[in-house]
């Protein structure tokens, strides 16, 4: 305890823990120089399979504030705060947004029972809609101000600036998507993270039939996917996490589509990647989607 106080005396900044990289970026934008953000699930890492390491527990134990997304996204958080004996506040950033349910995949195929819906009923991927991040920002501003009243003015100012750039992003995105008639706003992706995004920008995200897990696909699944792409006449196809890249090449060749690049769903990229911040991530994803939709 003494050591921790000594450390915080030398470094007057508030130690704050954010559960995953996107949230960490948002918190850092609001807190500015008054806080130090530690992110548990780092860039390019998958929050679904996160394994807490001793370092993570340590940073939670030292934290004055923990920020989580909520909606069942961080199922492991309770264990971490318990191990760290953390007694401080836990801010649920998504508090107050319009929660969407997880989409049940509604197509008529029977090959789908193997799916693993580990989040429960709510869809946690609310950050894919920038309008939700406005609410995230307000929640985080409030929590930081409560913890550190001296910095309240700064948090408010930073928060307002961030909200302004969120609104600008949103306007830009709406404008961009408006170029396409709704019928062309169709994308096949193996990600299940774009429900909020799709609802906000009226883009239909279709799950690739069958082929969505990392296990070995069957001929039926591959055939189903090719038929789906042909039938829906969709050229915007984003599938990455399939077991064999060779198989992916064959599918795109046979269905006559060019596969889109990576979409960042649950994590930022590394600093030298295309999506090192939330705002850049959204612009990058939208750019990728638009480029593929042009082919539809």
């Amino acid at each position, binding site marked *: 305890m003494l050591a921790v106080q000594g450390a915080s005396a030398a470094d007057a900044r508030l130690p704050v823990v954010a559960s995953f990289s996107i949230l960490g970026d948002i918190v850092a934008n609001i807190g500015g120089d008054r806080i130090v953000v530690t992110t548990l699930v780092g860039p390019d890492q998958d929050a679904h399979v996160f394994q807490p390491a001793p370092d993570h527990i340590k940073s939670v134990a030292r934290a004055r504030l923990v920020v989580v997304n909520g909606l069942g996204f961080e199922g492991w958080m309770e264990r971490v705060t318990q191990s760290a004996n953390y007694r401080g506040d836990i801010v649920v950033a998504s508090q107050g947004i319009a929660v969407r349910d997880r989409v049940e995949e509604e197509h008529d195929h029977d090959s789908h029972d193997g799916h693993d819906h580990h989040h429960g009923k709510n869809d946690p991927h609310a950050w894919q809609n920038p309008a939700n991040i406005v609410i995230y920002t307000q929640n985080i501003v409030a929590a930081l101000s409560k913890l550190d009243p001296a910095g309240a003015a700064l948090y408010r100012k930073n928060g307002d600036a961030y909200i302004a750039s969120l609104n600008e992003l949103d306007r830009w995105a709406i404008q961009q998507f408006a170029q396409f008639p709704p019928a062309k706003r169709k994308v096949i992706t193996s990600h299940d993270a774009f429900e909020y995004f799709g609802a906000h920008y009226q883009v239909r995200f279709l799950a690739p039939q069958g082929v969505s897990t990392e*296990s070995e696909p069957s001929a039926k699944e591959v055939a189903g996917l090719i038929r789906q792409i042909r039938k829906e006449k969709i050229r915007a196809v984003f599938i990455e996490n399939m077991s*064999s890249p060779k198989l992916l090449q064959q599918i795109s060749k046979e269905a006559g589509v060019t596969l889109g690049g990576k979409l960042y769903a649950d994590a930022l990229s590394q600093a030298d990647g295309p999506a090192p911040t939330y705002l850049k991530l959204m612009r990058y994803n939208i750019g990728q989607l638009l480029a593929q939709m042009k082919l539809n």
Partner: protein
Amino acid sequence: MMLLHDFYQFAIAPFQEFAFMRRALVATLALALSSAPLGVMLTLRRMSLFGEALSHAVLPGVAAGFIFFGLSLPALSIGGFLAGVIVVALAGWISRHTELKEDASLAAVYVVALALGVIMISGHGTQLDLLHILFGNVLGVDTEGLLLVAGVSSLSVLLMAGLYRGLLLESFDPSFLAAGGGRNTVYQQLFLMLVVLNLVASFQTLGTLMAVGLMMLPAVSARLWHDTLPAQLANSAVQAALAGYAGLMLSYYASVPSGPVIIVCAGGFYFLSLIFAPRGWLPRILRRPHLRA
């Protein structure tokens, strides 16, 4: 007429509609033609487990090919082939110059090779991903892979025909050719090279599980059906081809992963052979001793 149409719809239409089904079938058939007979020769020489061992031995070569040349089929295949050949040669050399038998030295060398391969791979990304990337999937066979399999298959069948007499004599009496000028090592080495070549080709196109399975399962069950080697060789190739076709159909209609289900089909044929083949269980029970000299 209706029946014919139904049959066409069921058995042929999937291959007409989808190129990936055609490629998978052609690759499997080509491999059946060369791998399964090689498997028969392996069992004949009591080397049934060599295939399994060699399939692991190619890993460091594949890994080296990937590290230096990236994802190029020729580099991966040549790397794997060289690693397999080196392991075979090393094991052969050890068995000639020490007390160890060939299978013992192979068992030692291939494990080391496998370990080296795992180390090399783990230096580049996660192990699991790379294993998936480095080895193919029967549904993802591309033109390059098809050419590789066809080439290897043709070469193997031709070479096997050329080596047939020598291999046969040697198989039934290892000391025969040894006494006749020490050519046994040449036959043995050439033969094992063919095995490695086939394993590498099927690794690259069909995936890890398929390689050994398609080589050994039809081979051991073919041996239950016939007394003569030519008949066994033909039977093994037919069984492998049937397993390939049946497996693809099952994968298409019942939605199960293709590679494993092809092997399970081969396993099914093996099980049936165990029971019903002339040298299997049932005829043995039914057969009265005096009916057969």
